[in-house]
């Protein structure tokens, strides 16, 4: 019998309704409660679990007590195995982390969790890439790619995975949004890590449509294209992300998945550099900047790669920016342009325009990039 782990972060999403942009931090939660925000994470989780209900006799749900999953599982007609303890119904990040670790020890086949970006970070901190997980979107605003687009979709995807109809997994981004700044109107994001999720793809294509190539293969194809054109006269700044990571892997170099690296003559000369280190190292040098859009909205700059600051971009020069993106990433935009949010509106305007984006080996597209 397959084992499904379930974690609901009962306070996720509470701030959104009352315009608080998230519930990280106890003070905010109190504020949210005063503003009579009603928890809706359980409702969202229920929408997902309902999609799995038909597997009731074939899978077992293991979860934490009361609002952390038990209620939802029972409401959907499951007889869940309850583990762990919580002190109050107002759970904290440490409850989420503890639950994730306990479920890992129980050897669940898939861990479903309902929450927002903060919840995804807690899961990542607790278990990293050791389990296959999937997020049910219940947070205020979700930037992390580990969440399905809707709770129903999360349930559907989970059921396909548990039934063995989807076998492939992929890694998806966990984003770190500084909610404190966000509440003040500043969107500050960092790429926090990656979690492993079931690989979702619309696998029913028309008869004339070939099966799209896998994300991993596409990333490798892009890496080959980049490496074939690397010049020994130039320095290359490598931005964060799994698509850029493939370049470093193919070069056999150490890299920082979430940070910015610098290479020269196919050798690593700086790893996980911050803005000032970058500026110092590239001063007076001929530089190319290789970046990939991060997050679901397709931001080239300003999401998860803030180290590449306006000053860094200016010193590299617009004509030396090489954008790489998998076809799936481009398709997911449904024709919308890629976006810029460098933090400097004038620079965003200067950088706007058409770019030749590398999408495969000897394959590229001409695509519009506009200021967000």
């Amino acid at each position, binding site marked *: 019998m397959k084992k499904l782990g379930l974690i609901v972060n009962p306070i996720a999403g509470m701030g959104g309704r009352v315009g608080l942009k998230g519930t990280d931090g106890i003070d905010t939660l109190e504020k949210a409660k005063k503003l009579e925000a009603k928890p809706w994470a359980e409702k969202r989780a229920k929408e997902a679990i309902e999609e799995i209900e038909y597997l009731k006799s074939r899978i077992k749900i293991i979860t934490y007590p009361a609002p952390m999953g038990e209620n939802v599982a029972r409401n959907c007609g499951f007889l869940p195995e309850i583990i762990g303890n919580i002190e109050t119904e107002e759970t904290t990040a440490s409850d989420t982390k503890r639950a994730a670790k306990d479920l890992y020890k129980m050897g669940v086949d898939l861990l479903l969790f309902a929450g927002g970006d903060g919840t995804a970070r807690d899961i990542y901190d607790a278990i990293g890439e050791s389990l296959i997980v999937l997020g049910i979107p219940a947070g205020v605003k979700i930037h992390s790619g580990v969440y399905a687009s809707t709770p*129903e979709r999360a349930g559907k995807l989970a059921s*396909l995975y548990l039934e*063995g*109809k*989807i*076998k*492939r997994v992929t890694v998806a981004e966990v984003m770190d949004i500084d909610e404190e700044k966000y509440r003040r109107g500043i969107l500050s994001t960092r790429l926090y890590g990656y979690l492993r999720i079931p690989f979702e*793809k*619309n*696998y*029913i*294509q*028309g*008869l*004339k*449509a*070939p*099966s*799209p190539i896998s994300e991993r293969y596409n990333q490798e194809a892009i890496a080959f294209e980049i490496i074939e054109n690397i010049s020994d006269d130039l320095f290359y700044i490598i931005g964060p992300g799994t698509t850029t990571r493939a370049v470093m892997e193919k070069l056999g170099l150490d890299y920082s998945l979430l940070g910015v690296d610098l290479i020269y003559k196919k050798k690593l000369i700086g790893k996980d550099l911050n803005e000032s280190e970058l500026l110092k190292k590239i001063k007076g040098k001929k530089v190319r900047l290789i970046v990939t859009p991060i997050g679901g909205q397709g931001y080239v700059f300003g999401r998860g790669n803030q180290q590449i600051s306006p000053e860094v971009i200016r010193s590299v020069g617009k004509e030396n920016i090489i954008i790489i993106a998998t*076809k799936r990433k481009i*398709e997911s935009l*449904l*024709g919308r342009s890629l976006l810029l949010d460098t933090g400097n509106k004038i620079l965003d305007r200067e950088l706007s*325009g*058409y*770019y*030749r984006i590398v*999408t495969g080996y*000897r*394959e*590229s*597209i*001409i*695509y*519009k990039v506009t200021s967000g």
Partner: protein
Amino acid sequence: MKRFHQAKWDEPVIFELSTEGERGILIPKTEKEIEESVGDGLSVLPEKMIRKKPPSLPEISQMRVLKHYLRLSQECLGADLNIDIGQGTCTMKYNPKINEVFVRSPKASELHPLQDEGTVQGSLEIMYRLDLFLREISGMDRFTFQPGGGSQAIFGMVSIIHAYHKLKGEDKRDEIITTIFSHPSDAAAAAVKGYKVITIYPDADGLPDIEALKKAVSEHTAGLLITNPEDTGIFNPHIAEFTKIVHEAGGLCGYDQANANGILGITRAKEAGFDLCFFNLHKTFSSPHGCGGPATGALGVKKELIPFLPVPVVDYDGKKYSLNYDLPSTIGKIREFYGVFPAVLRAYAWIMGLGAEGLKEVANVAVLNNNYVLNRIKKIRGASFSFPKTENRIEQVRYSWEELTKDTGVTTEDIIRRMADFGFHLWTSHHPFIIPQPFTIEPTESYSKKEIDEYLDTLENIAKEAYENPEKVKNAPYNSVVHKIDQSMLDDPEKWAITWRSYLKKHRNNSGGT
């Protein structure tokens, strides 16, 4: 809606029907005198080419073969069975049956490509005259019928582009530009030829973005391969500007006119500035598709590019037709001999039957039918059409069930399966799905208003059903050959099998013979 149930045979794969020793034909042993006169046949082959073990072909009698394929044919839909307007981009028009009488005549069916030219003057004349017709239709100066389909014709175009630049010593031109709504083979054939491929996306109106094209061209540009109208059914009115931009950069322009059904006699490749083009005789010119062949992609070029055409081409000196193998810069062969003659013959007969006026009428009626379909689909709840700012469409439209999916959870695949319950076929889109939950309809000129209405009434009813009883649609089909197929295997390299041998290897742990 009409009641329907598809035939349902539990028919095995033909390899599973094989019985050792069973034969369709018992071939008599060669008589001694014959063998002495012509040899035993096998010994003329180089020894290394003779296989040690015979191939693992099914062993089966004639009557069982016949039953097997008749059953399979009953489990299919096709243009002769259903109102086949749901396979957009493919131009599923009526294939006049009189043309089958022509191609079954021994004069056509017994034609051998190595016959002496003097004995095949009539066939060569038909090829020559079809070339003349297509020159008039396109404005090009010479055609070849050698390519066996659209993708081969594209490969022919890109091979000519390659040879042209090579002859001029411009080897650094290594990029081909195409658009995302052109046929995927335009990009694929260019890649096979070794080109880098640059793809242009549409602007907000659904037209290929001309600013993107300006960004794409450079001293590396070898050429442009583009469809117009594209898969969306939108005609690009700036096409002459596109070809001009590419020409100014030093590239050649190839027009993918596989489907030219909406523009026959209305616009031509020449006036749009193209150097090469091709027509699928099995789309616009009524030859049947034949399940992937045999077909013809008739490839035409402007005068300057005639020396590059594949050989042979058919010449006429005013008295006699002949096959000319002597073109100075020929790209060689795309396929053997002169092409699929039955497809050429059918297209010739079709054009002769219609005349110039008739061809134009075909386009007019196809466009009228299409815009009628568009206006009916606009009124279906949950349906929409791509790029609504551009209202008028040529021969087809790419539509979307995005709203219906959001409202009901029913997807375009669900609708497609439900259509099968009523004996209809509906198709999604080429990959990638830029338009969410896509479907593409192309009514052509062949169908009456009554038939088009019957198809659309069914579609409308299914959309209604999706709102009232989504589960019913999601679990379709009920009246078709098979129930819902588990397609997860298609996504699993360990499981997918496109040949019987590969199936045995992956599923039965059997190497499958030789």
